[in-house]
């Protein structure tokens, strides 16, 4: 899910003051730390994703929002 889609879904759910920050690249090396990614999936990642994007397959974000009072 793209960041703007995430924020848009929050707004459509009725939240206000949506804030997205704390951006942090999530690469294949980080994915290797999680047992949920199988070795086969890691191999697919290395093969299917261009090498210059291996360090930034996704972006970790912190998203905050508020329900109107």
């Amino acid at each position, binding site marked *: 899910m793209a960041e703007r889609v995430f924020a848009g*879904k929050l707004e459509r*759910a009725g939240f206000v003051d949506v804030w997205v920050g704390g951006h942090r690249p*999530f690469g294949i090396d980080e994915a290797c730390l999680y047992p*949920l990614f199988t070795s086969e999936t890691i191999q*697919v990642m290395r093969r*299917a994703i261009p090498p210059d994007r291996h360090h930034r397959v996704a972006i970790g*974000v*912190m998203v905050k929002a508020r*329900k109107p*009072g």
Partner: protein
Amino acid sequence: MARDLMFQEELKQAVRQAYAGISTGGGDSVARRFYSDQELTQVPAGAVEWALGVGNPVRYAFLQPGEAALDVGSGGGIDTILAARRVGPEGRAVGLDVLEEMCERGRRHAAEAGVEGWTRFVRGEMESIPLPDGSVDVVVSNGVLNLSARKSRALAEIHRVLGPGGRVCMADLTVEGELPPELANDQSAWAG
């Protein structure tokens, strides 16, 4: 429509199987990326061992003593326990997880942490949260919303259980552009 529902059910089952099939979380190598030494001393080793998140939403949630907090997708309980520490015995913390074995781990870890008196774990889906309307002040979630095939539904449920003025604080992964089709259709990639 029927195909979409089947797709959603397949994804749900894939995620459940992936989480039920692992014997440990990311452990220290994941936890130390997001939590301070001080925070890690506040949770039992077992909860650290089961760390599977992608951030530290409790740190950003600014929980206050006496508040009611819900951790959506609580896993081994690391964020639920940290939230329980912040809200204290005059507040309450609830961990929600779709897997009963994860809830059991959370309960065990909460007891080890000494916060079981005001912390509970309930089994349920984020798209159908088994809590009353307006029953919590804050919702935190860590790397969980992306697992849902019905994200808008999950967010609507989070909105429903929050009281007026309630806050949500979620850590998650976003992508820029499209993932290669081999990955977008890979169940392990989805579950991770």
